[in-house]
């Protein structure tokens, strides 16, 4: 029997992520409703910039991952051989209730790849919806179309990490065999929910791909928020020099000609983390990037109907509270 949550479609009992098994003719989680951490986090820190500004989401993670990125900042959670971490055991209802009590607008599934705990995630998402809470997540985007459909039915937003435009890079540095399913899912989700993209740049390895990714994303949605991260190499890449900011700035400025909402962050004080009006150049939303713990919104200059106060440009801020899904 195969697991059909991600494109590895593992044949049991060989669950690559070590999170699923076959029981009574069904694929089930080995560790249902187990979470490694939970805490309120600002949307800007996720990052989600074009929805819910200055809003707190309860960020929740499970453990393990279907990928094995050489630079993973959360390797201590994403590469646990077995159940070797302290884990919280929360029913979907309790997780939703705690989220509501904390004053957060909803649950954000992040930290590790949430698809490796998808049934628990979907159950918590359903409980959250019953309490009127939003649901979103960060993902490497390697899920199957079947899983993508389940996610799209429950989530209001996603941030997908498009780590490269080449399958060779994916194979060599992330353990995922192909970029194609990720590109397919980006196109799919762009139609279904609010979608933002993150690309961590490892200089010398994937910076040359930024023009191709620009073209691809422009074809998906020219107003998409694209977060280019100056990768702070960790884990197997520890010791590697982080990308040169001045050189990457040139590439980001170039990308902005096609994708005006391209951001450059993951280093403190980035000057390219503000939302700029593509018509008149006015700052629409001003942030400070605090590096790996994400950005903080300093000022939102949009007027009441999300227009540029200077030229009237209608900024495409997603209103997830009004229905969420597209």
């Amino acid at each position, binding site marked *: 029997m195969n697991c059909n949550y991600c494109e590895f479609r593992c044949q049991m009992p060989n669950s690559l992520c070590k999170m699923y098994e076959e029981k009574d003719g069904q694929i089930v989680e080995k560790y249902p409703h187990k979470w490694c951490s*939970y805490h*309120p986090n600002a949307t800007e820190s996720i990052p989600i910039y074009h929805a819910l500004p200055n809003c707190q989401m309860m960020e929740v*993670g499970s453990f393990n991952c279907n990928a094995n990125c050489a630079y993973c900042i959360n390797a201590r959670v994403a590469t646990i051989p077995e159940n070797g971490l302290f884990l919280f055991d929360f029913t979907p209802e309790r997780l939703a209730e705690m989220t509501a009590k904390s*004053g957060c607008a909803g649950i954000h599934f992040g930290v590790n790849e949430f698809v490796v705990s998808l049934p628990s995630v979907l159950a918590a998402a359903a409980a959250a919806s019953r309490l009127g809470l939003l649901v979103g997540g960060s993902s490497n985007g390697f899920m199957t179309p079947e899983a993508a459909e389940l996610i799209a039915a429950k989530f209001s937003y996603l941030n997908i990490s498009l780590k490269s435009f080449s399958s060779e890079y994916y194979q060599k540095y992330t353990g995922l065999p192909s970029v194609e399913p990720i590109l397919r899912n980006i196109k799919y989700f762009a139609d279904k929910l609010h979608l933002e993209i993150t690309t961590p740049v490892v200089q010398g390895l994937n910076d040359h791909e930024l023009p191709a990714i620009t073209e691809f994303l422009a074809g998906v949605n020219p107003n998409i928020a694209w977060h280019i991260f100056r990768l*702070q190499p960790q884990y197997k890449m520890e010791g590697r020099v982080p990308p040169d900011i001045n050189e990457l700035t040139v590439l980001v400025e170039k990308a902005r000609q096609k994708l005006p909402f391209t951001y450059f962050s993951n280093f*403190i004080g980035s*000057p390219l983390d503000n939302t700029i009006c593509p018509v008149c150049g006015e700052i629409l939303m001003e942030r400070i990037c605090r590096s*790996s713990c994400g950005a903080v919104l300093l000022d939102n200059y949009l007027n009441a109907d999300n227009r540029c106060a200077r030229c009237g440009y209608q900024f495409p801020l997603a209103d997830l509270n009004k229905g969420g899904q597209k």
Partner: protein
Amino acid sequence: MKAIIDVREWQATVDLKTGKPCLIDEKIAAPLRDLISRYPYPGDRNDEGADWVTAIAQETVKLYDPQFLYFNYNQPIFNGLYRPRQEEQRQRTIKKILADCQSFAEENNFALVLAGMGDTVPLKGYISEPHLKGLLMASAWSHYLGGLLQAEKGDLELLQKNQNVAAVIGKEELAAAYQMSENYYKLLPQYLLIAKEGYSFKGMFSHNQNMHYTECARTHLPVYSQIGYCGHIEGLNSLISTALDQGRKVLLVVVEGLGEADFTLPYQMLNNLRGQVPYNGYSLVYTLASGEKMENCPLPPLFDMTVQSELPRVFPLSMSVEKLPEKTIGCRSDLRTAAIGCRSMVTHTAINADLNIECYVRASNNMGVMLSLREEKLAGLK
């Protein structure tokens, strides 16, 4: 207060209050930019972090000749917290830190006051109390502290019955006993919880790493002082102020994870309690720097970060303070002051010296170095 941030091969200048880009007089900024570009932070897991403090301090003395200087070392606490303790290495580090501080003070004519924040102990277990209906929060800094928010019926009984919980202290109880600012009150959790020795809270905001050792509530802390002793941690500030008033230069050092057992300098044990709550982390550093009692600290010992979005959007790089403290020795207008620390934001937020140099580490990720400065005081930079 303005800051220069160095993320290796690139620097930004920001106004700490607004978080927005700003300009700094290049005459002042140039030597400071050069200084932090030459001393990237080696990281918390690396003993070279201790050398970083002393090396950057030597340069600071040459540049600014401070009369009051503060150092913070955190290497002893991290050895064992999230990875198995390497005792031999830990002993070497502590020995080196103490020797470095002594020789630095001697060579530069500072009177030395050095406080250990208390040794860590092997973790006996976590307190997660899964049947609570309220929200249990933990601290990524003082692992023996917990907080309970939105408590419901039965929650207090559960915690009081828990054999690993030493104290459950109500916010209202603290507010009735002490005068506190509105922001402090707002950030206090509904109940402040203290774990018994060897136990650590696991809840909202807990670090997602397993612990090997943990800090514990210390009623007394070891202190070495060349300017005399007093019975309580709260009194040290006045001794430091008097020494400074008498024209002496003072180096105040806080070493995290250093307890009585490894304190090789002559020391006295000073009372470390405010009521039932021990000074630790930010509150300890602030009290040493200001002489203020715990409830007058800009932040409670454990603060409720669920109220973050309700706070004024100021000082985005300075924890959750509304403003930088004004009563510290670091702010004295009649002195040249500097602070150098491995405990990121605590350095400038608790000391608020003319010149603060701190590592920029968030969630164990080493992101660079931040130098904050009081521009008007630094005009005389050499």
